C-alpha cells in the first residue's frame, strides 16, 4: 500500500518568526536579532527549527485524521536552516514494506530537506 501524506506548506517571513518567538518565549538571537545572526556561523537569521515541525503534524492529521496523533512516535533531525522568505512544505510517505512507519520530511522551495525523520503511526486505521 502506498500512502502519501498530504503536504502542508507555510511561508516563513520575519514577522512569523517573531510571532513564533513570542509563542515559545524563545528569543535566541539567532532567530530574532539580525545583527547577531549576520555575524554568526549561520550568516543570517534562521527560523526556529520547531516552527516547521508543525507542518509534519499537519500533513499527518490532514491525511490520516486527528485520531492518528494519539499514538505516534516522531523522530526528526534538523538538517538545514530555514531562512526568511522560505516556503517550507511538510509531508511524507509510508515506507515500503511497512504498515506503520512513515518517512517524514520538511523541504524548502528548492526541494532541499530542512527536516528529515520517521513517524511510527500506530493508530492510523
Amino acid at each position, binding site marked *: 500500500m502506498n500512502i502519501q501524506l498530504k503536504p502542508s506548506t507555510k511561508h516563513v517571513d520575519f514577522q512569523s518568526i517573531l510571532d513564533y518567538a513570542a509563542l515559545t*518565549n524563545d528569543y535566541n538571537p539567532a532567530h530574532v536579532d539580525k545583527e547577531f545572526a549576520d555575524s554568526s556561523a*549561520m550568516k543570517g537569521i534562521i527560523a526556529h527549527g520547531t516552527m516547521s515541525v508543525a507542518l509534519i503534524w499537519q500533513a499527518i492529521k490532514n491525511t490520516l485524521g486527528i485520531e492518528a496523533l494519539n499514538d505516534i512516535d516522531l*523522530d526528526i533531525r534538523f538538517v538545514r536552516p530555514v531562512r526568511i522568505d522560505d516556503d517550507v512544505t511538510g509531508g511524507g510517505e509510508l515506507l515500503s514494506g511497512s504498515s506503520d512507519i512513515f518517512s517524514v520530511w520538511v523541504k524548502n522551495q528548492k526541494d532541499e530537506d530542512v527536516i528529515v525523520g520517521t513517524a511510527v503511526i500506530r493508530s492510523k486505521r
Partner: protein
Amino acid sequence: MSNEILFTYDHYEVDKIYGVKEFVVDEAVVAKWRAVYPQDNEAGVMPAGMLSMIVIDAVLTHHAPRPPGGIHGGQTFKVTRMPRIGETLLTEVKCLSKEIKKDRKWVKASTTTTIKGTGEVVLTGVMTSLIAR
C-alpha cells in the same frame, strides 16, 4: 552589562532532574498559536505543533539563560494522547547526556509531560541541542 550567569555546557549534569514546568492549554494560548497556524483549528484538541512549544518552554525554563546562538539538532516525540484544551500539563526536564564531538557541544534533554491531577503521561521525548558555549 548584565551580570547574569549563563547556563553553559559545563552546567549540565547528566541524569539530573531539573524540575517541572506547568503549561495551561487554555483558549488564549491556542488562539495565539492559531494566529500563526490557521490550519490548526480542530475544536477541543490542542494543535500537535504545540507539543514542541511545551518542550521548549520547559527546557528553556530550567536551562536558562542559555548562551546566545545555540541551535536545535533533533527531537523525538512519543505521543500517547493529544492534550485537550482546558488541561494543564506538567513537563519534567532531565539531562540525558552531554558530549563534545568535533569541538561541538551537544546536550540531550529528556522530557516527560503528564496531565496535572491524573498523572497520565501524554508525551515523552528527547531534545538534542547544540550549545553555543
